[in-house]
């Protein structure tokens, strides 16, 4: 397990997904909060390369021993890569959710969709509010 962090260079979706912009491509993953809530991830059901993601809609599933969780796309686009290392070793999502535990790379159809997402400070405040 990793320590609770929310890097400043990411944008965050309220369903606990992050996105890192890299040119006109973006990397998607789930946040520390998401992997902690799910517990030890044992299965990643990824989309096909070439599949379309829609902002706010599920593009795959992560499963722990006990539960299934939809993975929500923070933005729309076309999947250009799937992290095969997570398919083979799903626990990477727990150990390094923002690094080796990334899930897919997506060519964004409309990068301005990221403007609707939270920055790290806003996401931390949002998480604090969830406990109320």
């Amino acid at each position, binding site marked *: 397990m990793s320590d609770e962090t929310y890097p400043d260079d990411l944008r965050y979706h309220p369903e606990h997904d992050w996105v890192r912009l890299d040119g006109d491509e973006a990397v998607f993953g789930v946040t520390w909060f998401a992997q902690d809530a799910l*517990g030890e991830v044992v*299965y990643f059901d990824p989309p096909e390369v070439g599949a379309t993601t829609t902002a706010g809609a599920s593009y795959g599933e992560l*499963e722990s*021993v*006990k539960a299934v969780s939809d993975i929500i796309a923070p933005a729309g686009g076309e999947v250009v890569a799937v992290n095969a290392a997570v398919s083979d070793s799903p626990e990477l999502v727990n150990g390094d959710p923002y690094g080796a535990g990334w899930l897919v790379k997506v060519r964004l159809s409309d990068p301005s969709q990221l403007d609707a997402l939270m920055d790290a400070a806003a996401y931390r405040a949002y998480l604090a509010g969830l406990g109320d």
Partner: protein
Amino acid sequence: MITDLKRTSLYDRHAAAGAKIVPFAGWEMPVEYAGVRAEHLAVRARSGLFDVSHMGQIEVMGPGSREFLQSVLTNDITRIGPGQAQYTLLPDDEGGVIDDLLAYALLDRFLLVVNASNIAPCFERISGLAPAGVDVVDRSPEVAMLALQGPAWALALSPFASPEPFALQYMEATEARVSGVPCLVARTGYTGEPGVEIMCPADDASTVWDALMRGPDGPVPTGLAARDTLRLEMGYPLYGNELGRDRSPIAAGLHWACDLRNGGFPGAERMRSEREQGTPEKLVALLFTEKGIPRGGCPVLANGEVVGTVTSGTLSPSLGVGAALAYVSSDHAEPGTALTVDVRGKQKAAEVTALPLVDTSPRKGDPR
């Protein structure tokens, strides 16, 4: 809806150990500590310690207790004497299952250990049928229960137990002190591994827990999630998943726990008939032959037709593949039968597999 969740006397220990705590059957229970897989594998390889204080303890005592229990439980309770335990079921009038339980014969009474969610229905059923002179008492609130499970259980217990209860065979129980606390120590469990379940006064449970945890060959704290994966690999049924009022125990393969030859318990006639003629569905184990994880409620198919339903499913931590218990039509229940499981719209290949799914036994290491 706000409900008052109960806490076991070990709640503070779980919180201090970093457990993830969830509501379960009206209790706040530790579901995992370090992680389900690590805990599961530790129990199979060495030992794990579970808090199962949410489970119920009902005592039955007084003249005629044995005859009374013989008339309400499915198994032949005359086959156990003081210091012995027996797996049995409490049927309703139609032969449906109110609960599955362990009955212990003690020197002066019987002790029934029932599922947490079924304490009230069990107590109402048993006390409602008890004749004058037979006392039925719910001891659940004052009794804590720890399960020390795994092949190294004796190493973990030996520094603290007096007398050392290592001559006990599977399904035997004795009184002993653990770290000075008077306990009932029983060679029982729900993991498939050798081990003991330890019942003691709730107020003293933390003394027992602390002693076992600090021993040189101490167990890892193990949560309810691993308890579920461990029992599933053995094919042990869980009330509410594989057992309920809507079926008799026969479809679940529990005829061995029902005295069909002589028993006069409620539903005995139906169960005899089901045993002779067969049930339309049988409980089987499935292993996936491709990636994926079955879940309760997933349809089971043969040649595109629905032939059953998954009742419990998980990723088997021991085998690394999807594993399920499922009721399937009896003509698709033979080990080796290829079936598919519909996991949220995706068809996954699976095979009916003989139980247990792992090569272990709670009798492992017993001298006879």
